[in-house]
């Protein structure tokens, strides 16, 4: 079952804010910095290497086994490289541990991560390897002549996915898996209400059908399902909701330089729309109500928006579920893109794990890490992992392989490996790869994302409590978000919400230390001045 564990992420956020602050301070004198990585001319196979790989699985043992198999296969190819796997079930814990280890130069060698996180890792000088040289290295690069496996060429990595790993003028990661969001629709209910699903879902359609679904019987139950509960439209990740709405509207969010532009009139209009439908009960969110899948499968929701990587929880025959079997209802599940403002030009978020390489003093060790990183993009690994959820492989080679094509063609053959909803969302992303986008990455972009979602959460909660959402409300909300997430500091987001915590005055020991340092410098300078004067005096015979 999937229970909320919000406390942990908040705890981590504060720890991260503190550590980030310390990293910034230590960066001032560069004591933790690394020399820039230079690709060695030759990989020294006479030596043994031990590298660590921090990976994330979706509480899914099959994914763990795929990592283990990938490591075993890689070690067969490179017997002098040992890969130690450390598994996490939560990206934020990886983020926390990496940052902690950057300050002590004990990072892993290879790590699953998000580009937003790498932007923070880069606070440590040369801590993450810029991969540009490695990509293009003829011997050990992508498709390199001395690579002992069928490494994809740079051109075979889906360009949109690869570009997501580029920021600050360099590539800092390789994409590993990609997903997007999908709208899982109870088609049976839509038609019962007298509507036909359009080819592309629009916001107007979703709002209209959602309002229509609220009609009640005389006994207070909902006419559509005969139950006491009906939340027609539930969104899991409201940060994505706001980001995609703004993108589809062509409205501002942020720019590459980290300037915050979300607090604009379009955002306000979108919040008014959310308020209108939150007030009637037509719309709610995961944070307010619970997982969309639970409501969808119980016949209490029509439009459930969640990641394609959560497809195995969606639908009448979902292989994974939090609700008991007796609560399931029979319905036809339609898989559609997230709602659009311009159905002729659909736009949707691209998300999913990437993998980065951490710098080490030993460039041979970094090269060994890079070889393993490349191996994760080999077709065997890509296809196996993509099949575990509604992911798609990131290389055209894997996507077009007979094995993957065969997998897709077996849609619906069972409710596990070939679960039809899971394969349909993968096909949805494959058909829309060119319609995906990501938001600019900068130090603090994760905070801006948090604020984007929090505004929808706040507005929805407020109207459920009969509060008025108007001009004054939105103005205050903008100010609150600015303050909470430090978005108004020179136009740049400063860090997580937790970084809003006032660190207070320096402790006494720190102040004493600074005092001693200051005193030492004064004494040194005084000595230098005295010595210079003395020498001058000696020379002049005084």
């Amino acid at each position, binding site marked *: *079952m*999937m229970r909320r564990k919000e406390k942990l992420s908040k*705890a981590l956020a504060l720890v991260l804010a503190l550590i980030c602050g310390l990293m910034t301070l230590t960066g001032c004198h560069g004591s933790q910095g690394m020399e820039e990585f230079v690709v060695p001319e030759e990989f020294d196979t006479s030596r043994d290497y031990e590298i660590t790989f921090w990976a994330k699985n979706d509480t899914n*043992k099959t994914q763990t086994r795929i990592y283990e198999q990938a490591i075993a296969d890689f070690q067969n190819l490179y017997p002098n490289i040992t890969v130690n796997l450390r598994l996490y079930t939560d990206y934020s814990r990886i983020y926390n541990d990496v940052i902690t280890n950057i300050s002590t130069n004990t990072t892993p060698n290879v790590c699953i991560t998000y580009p937003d996180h790498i932007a923070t890792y880069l606070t440590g000088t040369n801590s993450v390897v810029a991969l540009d040289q490695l990509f293009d290295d003829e011997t050990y690069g992508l498709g390199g002549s001395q690579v002992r496996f069928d490494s994809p060429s740079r051109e075979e990595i889906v360009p949109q996915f690869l570009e997501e790993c580029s920021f600050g003028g360099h590539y800092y990661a390789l994409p590993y898996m990609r997903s997007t969001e999908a709208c899982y629709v109870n088609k049976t209910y839509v038609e019962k209400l007298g509507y036909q699903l359009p080819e592309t879902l629009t916001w107007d359609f979703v709002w209209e059908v959602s309002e229509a679904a609220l009609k009640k019987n005389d006994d207070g139950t909902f006419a559509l399902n005969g139950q006491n509960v009906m939340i027609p439209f539930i969104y899991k990740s409201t940060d994505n909701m706001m980001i995609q709405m703004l993108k589809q509207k062509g409205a501002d969010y942020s720019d590459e330089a980290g300037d915050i532009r979300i607090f604009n009139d379009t955002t306000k209009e979108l919040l008014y729309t959310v308020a209108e439908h939150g007030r009637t009960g037509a719309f709610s969110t995961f944070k307010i109500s619970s997982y969309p899948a639970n409501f969808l499968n119980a016949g209490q929701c029509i439009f459930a928006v969640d990641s394609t990587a959560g497809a195995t929880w969606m639908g009448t025959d979902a292989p994974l579920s939090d609700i008991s079997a007796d609560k399931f209802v029979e319905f036809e599940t339609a898989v559609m893109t997230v709602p659009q403002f311009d159905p002729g030009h659909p736009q949707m978020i691209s998300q999913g794990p990437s993998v980065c390489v951490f710098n080490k003093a030993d460039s041979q060790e970094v090269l060994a890490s890079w070889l393993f990183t490349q191996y994760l993009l080999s077709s065997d690994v890509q296809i196996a992992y993509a099949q575990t959820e509604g992911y798609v492989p990131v290389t055209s080679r894997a996507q077009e392989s007979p094995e993957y094509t065969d997998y897709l063609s077996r849609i619906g053959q069972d409710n596990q490996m070939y679960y039809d909803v899971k394969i349909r969302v993968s096909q949805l992303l494959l058909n829309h790869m060119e319609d995906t986008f990501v938001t600019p990455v900068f130090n603090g972009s994760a905070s801006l994302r948090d604020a984007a979602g929090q505004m929808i959460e706040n507005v929805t*909660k407020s109207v459920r409590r*009969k509060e008025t959402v108007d001009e004054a409300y939105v103005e205050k909300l903008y100010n609150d978000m600015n303050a909470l997430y430090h978005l108004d500091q020179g136009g740049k987001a400063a860090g997580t919400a937790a970084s809003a915590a006032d660190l207070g005055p320096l402790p006494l020991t720190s102040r004493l230390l600074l005092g001693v340092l200051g005193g030492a410098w004064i004494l040194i300078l005084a000595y230098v001045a005295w010595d210079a004067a003395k020498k001058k005096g000696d020379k002049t015979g005084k």
Partner: protein
Amino acid sequence: MKKRFALFLALVLVLTMVGCAGGNNQGTDEPAEDPSAKSEGVMTYEEYVAADLDTEVVVETYVQAKQSWWEDQATVYTQDGDGAYFLYNMACSEEDYEKLVPGTKIRVTGYKSQWAGEVEIIDATFEILEGSFIAEALDVTDLLGIDELEAHQNEFVTFKGMTVEPSVNPDGEEVAFLYNWDGSGEDGNDLYFNVSKDGKTYNFCVESYLCDNTTDVYNAVEALNIGDTVDLEGFLYWYEGVNPHITSVTVL
């Protein structure tokens, strides 16, 4: 000698009486507090139950256990003489959190809410009041599987004579418990285990934020064997159905 003996007996008698009286009232010699009594303007438990979701509620209740604190927010299990209130992410300084020891009386103002079936108070603030009450565990064994159980949501309860049933780990093996609901976790994560009564099986949980892997209950569940008969205590949490957060396990 007789005088000394009589004095000794009198002393024992007095101490015994004090000990009995102090059970639910922290050893004071004041009259036992009525944990159902409310100040003016404060809801009774009955009124709280009747209140609509997303409306403001004001309750007086007593801390029974604390689950977590971070970033000035506390999650707390509380109860009065009539029912329980789960306080989720209530505004609370770290200093105040330390004061929320079991029994502490608090007045809470927040919004009644429901998440995955769990009725709770969110976006709340509180003030500490004079008074103390520790609820005794209510035996709800016979209510398992019937609708009436939900009326006791979040209360401190006990289940008697339950049998540990197998869970299946990701390798397909039958085990007495799992780390995380599907066995994907490790030591330190939530524990999930199945117990049965009268042929029906229920899934219980040791919430790692409430009872981490250093606690007796965590270690006791890790030591369970399939087929063990156990008495259990915990808070009647709800997640898409009954999902007690177990705080005590006794193998019979």
